[in-house]
């Protein structure tokens, strides 16, 4: 659905069903340079399972206009305001990559409480190398291409996909190219500059789930494992794939999230 939010056209994926705030809401937060399309197989799956699903395209991403947020905190405030605007409470927030940092920060600032937090390919910190930071400014399209290649496990190289006929690389590149060219630069700097992750992780009081990827080259497994140690009782799973586990292992991820959700309340 498209709404006018903070004076800008804002797109929110709802998994093919209309938003119903009487149902439990799952809020998916996309990663750096991504948009709602990186969660297509989660959004539709959970919308059809009876959840209300929102996958906002952050400003300047996907179909959303507006100026890109310039820090993780700004991203979290934007999401917080959006949840208030949509009158959504007790949401389960599911972040992927940068979306995990935003979820951590959101949990700190949120006025109303969150129901649970789910971290997909997440960590408390996502340092970005200088080469990629520079490239995202000078040649964002090239930077997208590199991230798509690094981001996928062997299924990317081999064009192996559970979705018949789809190519992780071809699709991933074009999803990133849909964003405004400046979006990636601000995302990567936001990740690189974020340093409150340890505190934020230690502060989590709601149920938490982490699904990490064995061959993650963007948020390495080692970093993810350190991160989950900071969270009290974080249920942790490791899948054999790369960083883009929502599209690389959709069924496994959905099933882990589904059984975690069924244990809430």
């Amino acid at each position: 659905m498209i709404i006018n939010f903070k004076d800008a056209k804002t797109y929110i994926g709802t998994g093919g069903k209309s938003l119903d705030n009487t149902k439990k809401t799952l809020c998916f937060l996309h990663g750096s340079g991504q948009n709602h399309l990186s969660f297509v197989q989660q959004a539709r799956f959970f919308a059809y399972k009876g959840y209300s699903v929102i996958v906002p395209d952050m400003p300047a991403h996907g179909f959303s206009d507006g100026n890109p947020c310039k820090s993780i905190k700004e991203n979290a405030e934007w999401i917080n305001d959006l949840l208030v605007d949509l009158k959504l409470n007790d949401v389960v927030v599911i972040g992927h990559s940068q979306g995990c940092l935003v979820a951590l920060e959101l949990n700190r600032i949120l006025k109303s409480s969150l129901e649970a937090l789910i971290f997909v390919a997440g960590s408390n910190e996502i340092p970005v190398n200088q080469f990629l930071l520079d490239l995202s400014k000078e040649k964002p399209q090239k930077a997208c291409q590199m991230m798509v290649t690094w981001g996928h496990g062997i299924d990317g190289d081999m064009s192996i996909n559970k979705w018949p006929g789809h190519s992780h690389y071809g699709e991933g590149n074009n999803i990133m190219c849909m964003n405004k060219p400046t979006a990636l630069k601000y995302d990567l700097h936001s990740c690189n500059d974020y340093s409150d992750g340890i505190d934020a992780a230690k502060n989590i009081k709601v149920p938490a789930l982490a699904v990490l990827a064995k061959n993650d080259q963007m948020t390495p497994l080692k970093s993810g494992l350190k991160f989950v140690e900071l969270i009290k009782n974080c249920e942790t799973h490791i899948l054999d794939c790369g960083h883009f586990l929502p599209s690389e292992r959709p069924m496994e991820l959905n099933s882990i999230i589904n059984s975690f959700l069924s244990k809430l309340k």
Partner: protein
Amino acid sequence: MSENYKFDTLSLHAGHIPDKETGSRAVPIYQTTSYVFNSTEEAASLYNMEVGGHLYTRISNPTVAALEQRLAALEGGASALACSSGMAAMHLVVSAICSSGDHIVASSKMYGANINLLQHTMPRFGVKTDFVNPNDPEAINRAIKPNTKLVFGEVIGNPGLDIMDVPEIAKICNSKNIPLVLDATFNTPYLMQPFKHGANIIVHSLTKWLGGHGIAIGGAVVNGGNFDWGDKDKFPTISGPHFALGGISFWEEFGPSALIAKIRAEGMYNFGPSLSPTNAFHLMQGIETLPLRMKKHIENTHSILDFLVNHEMVEWVKHPDLETHPDHEVAKRILPKGSGSIVAFGIKGGREAGKAFIESVQLASHLANVGDAKTLLIHPGSTTHSHLSSEAMKEGGLTDDMIRLSVGLEDINDIKKDFERGFKAVKKLNK
């Protein structure tokens, strides 16, 4: 892990890794119509397009999907869909995008069935086409109307071998937000990858060089994922509400793969031109050696061009790699590895000479296909166009002495010897 494999490697591997259970190195042929659901929930999630997977072979099949993913990788596209023939692929694209009242701009020099579909069949359903010279980007620009929904052409035209200036035409289409759809059968991704030049959708007849062995008919649509379908008024079938699935917009739900999602949900569901898993296997087997074959096709073509150009019995030779071809400069720029292995040539002595030549060669096969590993020949003047006068053939850009040659992979000297046998018969006739 992030190897970014090159073309030759992808030709062999893309779309398949051996499964843990059987270890089968070759892509298994899943010769099945349907797939057991583990639960009603799983069945529903496939019908609702919540997640990817297979439910019925008319819509998708694991062997066919391996082929599709290989093609998507070789073309650098977002997604691909394989179907029963090249013509099915063409029809799937046109019917997914166009509705009654819409307009198409197409090349006037294309394969007969491509022309027929647009000139005679689609108008019955209210979709009209204006045909323009494929090597005149400005003419294409002028032909575009407010209701034009796609521009279509063959990268290398069949049989005239006209070359489209793809980057120039893509610029025009892009500026007017109209998808450029290209039949890339004659070039294959080995010689040229149209998405790199700005095209948006590719259709292939896999029957030809991709399959490469003349054993299976098949086609494919490859979706570049690089087109913005967001204008709901202009592209209601892709970005407007779908008649099923709760009225979703394919563009909003599936973004870069919207077109393929639409074709699967409508074209494959309602028309059903599915590719058999066994044919998908045969076609993939062909693709494994595509780079090797294309290299040899081009090598043999260049050698035979030399032979024909210098032959006393040959009136004229047409191939884009010859300096005499009107599109030679464009060919050099966009097809630097060579512009395919189809050659047209005229034999001194007209229609009768062509007939005598065809009937005297032994090695080259006289038939109506192209792109086989074996050398193929046809003489339109005594076969497909035998009912036309010389004048009528000329109007269609053909001459009655013309032979269409699809250069195969045989030892080049054997092909030349075979042709000498044909020329000898013509000489006898001309005496």
